């Protein structure tokens, strides 16, 4: 889902609790270049908003970076 919203992004998602609803995503995307970190997070959250809205995901930790 994140990869679809941010083409070219390297995404790693870890299920933190084994329940599938507390996830940790590490995202490196070329689209982040020039954005503040909070805007980078906004992009990731926007990509998965649907899953928050329908309750599939309860919590998502995000760590973003620009690929070097």
């Amino acid at each position, binding site marked *: 889902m994140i990869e679809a919203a941010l083409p070219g992004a390297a995404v790693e998602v870890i299920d*933190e*609790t084994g329940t599938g609803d*507390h996830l940790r995503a590490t995202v490196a995307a070329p689209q982040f270049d020039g954005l503040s*970190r*909070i805007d980078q*997070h*906004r992009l990731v*959250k926007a990509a998965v908003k649907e899953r*928050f809205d329908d*309750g599939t995901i309860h*919590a*998502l*930790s*995000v*760590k973003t970076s620009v690929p070097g």
Partner: protein
Amino acid sequence: MADAELKSKVEELIQANPVLLFMKGTPDMPRCGFSMRVVQVLDQVDVDYGAIDVLPALQPLREVTAEISDWQTFPQLYVNGELLGGCDLVEEMFESGELAKALGVEQPDNAQAPQAQQSAPQQSPPLQIE
């Protein structure tokens, strides 16, 4: 569409409080592990802050903050009227010293964000205000 009255109230609060935390539960009794971690960070930087428990009006407040700052998960930390972020960003900025700088305080020694607890964080109750 967010409730206009609530939105203007929230905007007033953000302007009136230099450091304002929207959280699940209260600083003394956080109801969510992420909110608790932000409280612990703020305690470490030793800054006065206002705190608002979002649980009594979770969904209306989500709609309001989505419009105000394009962010709808909690916790949310505002400093001088600007959203700094949620738990991840607050912890990152704490460890890098950016948080202390934004708050205009000294970076504490050994600034180390509270780690996620081994056991699952205390869950907020299955509360859905629709």
